[in-house]
């Protein structure tokens, strides 16, 4: 397997690069190119941030095209919505949205090649077979490679409606294939945005206000300009007043103080010599467009402190809220209840902390723009970039590099605009780099959440009512139509939110990453109060939701939900004596069209909890690349343990209190489970998401195991004290 990078100027040496490849490529659909000597190049349309679409999406094409996978080279495509589709990494959508179009593209190209062979041999196409890149006409004993017919096939129209293969006959998809870029990763080849470089490129950094709610008042760059390597210091306004931002544009700070210089280290040093004065920004009015039409957003001016914000959330929680869903008569159910269980769950802001800090390359001139870097959704950013640069979209080239993590952070194009505006002003190719401190302290965070769950039990301990009221800063997390909605006669979901100037956005399984922790923890406590096994209790509810669903719009499929619970129950040996030495916790969740369940086995060593083993069950339909899919689930498990144990970003008067990994505790090697067993439900349902679904229920399973280990319910994230690494002394108290 050879493959090469998106960066042509960087790919001219070494093994398996552009230089080795033939020049005559015949294009069959936007995704496939074939040379006369039968080298097949497949263009991966979707940005790669570690979910391995560079491998899995080309596998789908290769399957229907029917080629020898070993002869395939994979190339990352540029932004080109016409040829390459939606090009968006997020919402666990990559495989789901490309499944059908890529199968069709592969099948169409295969048909074109067969048609070219049929025309050449003057035989009916129906008499031909094509397999592993070779076309055969058995009657006449003729055969030829795809390469021999590539040039002829390329001139044929792209057919529609070609019959797709039977899933059962797949030989590439559903078989594990190695990451096509693994060798480059292991040898340090330039793959990432931060590695991007062109002749004459300068480095740019932004000096931002020390706190949310502040802005630049004045600066003196005299000393900074005298520093070695420094080219310029200037300010840039990101969005002019009244500028209509796209739905995913966002921004942390609008007035940017920029240092441009020769090398990263020189720019870092020059930043230290800037003399700056900051002032309260006050209330800001943003104009935001997007799906829901144009609206004005008031960004408050307060310098926020997390502890005070936490108290404010508890006050808001008592106020009337927006009703999202109501089934039956929950008021009466709670009034008539023999027992009411009420619990409140809280969680802090989380920083994405992608290992590759935010960066982007831009070269903007009066006529055109080239931008390149780590970006999850180029199509969302392009319209705004065009408006900001006053260039037609046709004059803008966006290249996507491999991303050193994304997790939602790189769906927001503001840093690309920042880079472009800086390049325009500097009149030079520049690479904007955020330091780790920049990355952590002016992020687009996971919001701060709270939710209060209530359950009404009758005298026989039957669940007769269920309610959830949730809020957040500045967004709530409630999914009103998710389980256990549909399984309880009397149900109420309500929500509220508090505006904030702290910028937030998607973070791996947005909202679900909190809900699953809270709800799955609550269901565990409920099962205990009812004297039921936590898995059996959930299965009973799911059976109810299947047999006699309550209400409308229940988002989940009760059978598939129950399926992952049963699978994890069986694979983990749930309830078996040999597992008694572990503190076990279970949780399951549905999000992004897929189902996940985990059983975590915890131990306590020197007062500190460790997750030793994890059993995971997933239902995401057809699994494209099984080993790679397992890797992603394993990663979600580790990520979930880390964030539930330690994840926390807090603010004091608008200033982030954690600015690097010495203060923001990340899970480390010794804390990873020694065994993670991943099982997939085997079915032939079209693939759904996998990047996000396994993540949220980890929080719940960890919380439930921690209860077993400490005899105490943990309601507040993070569950452990980031400094002592012990369970927080009284997790019921507000801890941040």
């Amino acid at each position: 397997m050879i493959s090469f990078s998106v960066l042509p100027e960087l790919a001219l040496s070494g093994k398996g690069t552009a230089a080795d490849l033939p020049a005559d490529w015949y294009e069959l659909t936007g995704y496939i190119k074939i040379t006369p000597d039968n080298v097949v190049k497949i263009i991966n349309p979707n940005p790669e941030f570690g979910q391995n679409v560079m491998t899995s999406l080309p596998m789908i094409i290769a399957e229907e095209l029917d080629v020898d996978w070993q002869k395939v080279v994979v190339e990352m495509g540029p932004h080109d919505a016409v040829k390459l589709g939606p090009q968006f990494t997020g919402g666990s959508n990559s495989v789901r949205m490309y499944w059908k179009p890529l199968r069709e593209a592969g099948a169409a190209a295969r048909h074109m090649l067969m048609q070219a062979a049929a025309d050449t041999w003057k035989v009916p196409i129906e008499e031909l077979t094509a397999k592993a890149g070779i076309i055969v006409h058995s009657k006449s004993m003729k055969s030829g490679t795809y390469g021999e017919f590539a040039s002829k096939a390329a001139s044929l129209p792209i057919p529609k409606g070609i019959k797709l293969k039977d899933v059962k006959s797949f030989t590439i998809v559903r078989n594990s294939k190695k990451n096509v870029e693994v060798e480059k990763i292991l040898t340090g080849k330039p793959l990432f945005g931060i590695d991007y470089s062109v002749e004459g490129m300068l480095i740019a950094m932004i000096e931002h206000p020390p706190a949310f709610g502040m802005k630049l008042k004045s600066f003196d760059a005299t000393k900074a300009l005298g520093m070695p390597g420094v080219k310029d210091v200037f300010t840039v306004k990101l969005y002019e007043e009244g500028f209509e931002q796209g739905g995913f544009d966002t921004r942390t700070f609008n007035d940017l103080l920029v240092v441009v210089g020769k090398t990263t280290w020189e720019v870092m040093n020059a930043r230290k010599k800037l003399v700056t004065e900051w002032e309260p920004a006050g209330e800001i009015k943003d104009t935001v467009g997007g799906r829901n039409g144009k609206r004005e957003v008031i960004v408050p001016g307060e310098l926020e402190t997390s502890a005070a914000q936490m108290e404010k959330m508890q006050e808001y929680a008592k106020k009337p809220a927006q009703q999202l869903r109501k089934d039956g008569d929950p008021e009466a159910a709670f009034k008539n209840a023999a027992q009411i269980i009420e619990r409140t769950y809280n969680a802090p802001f989380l920083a994405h902390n992608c290992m590759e800090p935010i960066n982007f390359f831009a070269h903007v001139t009066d006529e055109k723009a080239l931008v390149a870097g780590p970006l999850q959704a180029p199509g969302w950013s392009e319209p705004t970039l065009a408006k900001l640069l006053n260039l037609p979209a046709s004059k803008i080239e966006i290249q996507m590099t491999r991303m050193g993590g994304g997790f939602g952070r790189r769906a927001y194009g503001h840093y690309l605009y920042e880079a472009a505006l800086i390049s325009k002003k500097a009149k030079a190719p520049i690479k904007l780099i955020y330091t780790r401190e920049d990355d952590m302290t002016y992020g687009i965070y996971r919001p701060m959440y709270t939710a209060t769950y209530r359950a009404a039990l009758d005298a026989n301990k039957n669940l007769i009512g269920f309610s959830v009221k949730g809020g957040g800063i500045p967004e709530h997390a409630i999914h009103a139509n998710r389980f256990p909605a549909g399984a309880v006669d009397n149900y109420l979901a309500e929500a509220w939110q508090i505006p904030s100037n702290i910028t937030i956005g998607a973070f791996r399984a947005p909202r679900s990453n909190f809900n699953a922790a809270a709800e799955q923890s609550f269901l565990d406590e409920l099962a205990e109060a009812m004297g039921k096994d936590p898995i059996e209790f959930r299965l009973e509810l799911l059976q109810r939701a299947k047999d006699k669903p309550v209400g409308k719009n229940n988002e989940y499929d009760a059978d598939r939900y129950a399926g992952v619970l049963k699978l994890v129950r069986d694979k983990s040996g749930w309830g078996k004596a040999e597992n008694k030495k572990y503190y076990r916790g279970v949780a399951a969740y549905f999000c992004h069209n897929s189902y996940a369940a985990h059983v975590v086995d915890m131990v306590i060593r020197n007062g500190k909890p460790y997750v030793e083993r994890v059993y995971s069950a997933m239902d995401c339909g057809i699994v494209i690349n099984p080993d790679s899919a397992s890797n992603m689930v394993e990663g979600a498990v580790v990520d979930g343990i880390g964030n539930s144990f330690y994840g926390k970003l807090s603010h004091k008067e608008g200033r982030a209190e954690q600015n690097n990994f010495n203060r923001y505790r990340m899970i480390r090697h010794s804390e990873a489970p020694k065994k993670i067993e991943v099982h997939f439900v085997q079915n032939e349902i079209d693939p759904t998401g996998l990047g996000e679904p396994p993540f949220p229920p980890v929080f719940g399973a960890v919380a439930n195991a921690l209860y077993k280990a400490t005899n105490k319910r943990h309601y507040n994230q993070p569950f452990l004290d980031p400094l002592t690494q012990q369970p927080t002394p009284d997790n019921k108290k507000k801890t941040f």
Partner: protein
Amino acid sequence: MIHHSHQLKIMINLNINNKNYELDVDPDTPLLWVLRDTIGLVGTKYGCGVAQCGACVVHLNGEAVRSCVTRASRAVGQKVVTIEGLSENNDHPLQQAWAELDVPQCGYCQSGQIMSAAVLLREKKNPTDQDINMAMEGNICRCGTYLRIQNAIKRAAEIQRKGSK
């Protein structure tokens, strides 16, 4: 000893991956940025700048150092090895094992992980879980590939013991 200040640049000589470089850089510059910005060896990654994440680990005379806090001056007269120079044919047992177990997700931290593991594997032919934790604790992986990394280290030890390629 090199005398230096921000205003004064002195040519310094570095040996990186068995190649000599004469460089016009401030000797205070962290080795990380000399590698990445001056020489163009970008396999060594910037992750935190304060020796907390391990993405920038290189070998200085065979020892793992965090190049983000190692001044270039400290590398003068020493042998620096980066991920690009770990093996001649990309076939270090760790690289083989990493590929075999298909370890990376995003891949950004992996060169640092491998460089840390390489010192461990040289010192311990059959590393235990505890040895691995000790040697690798300083390397963060946000994608959560720790378990595969640990299994790959054990696999590499096996490859090394067998002397196979």
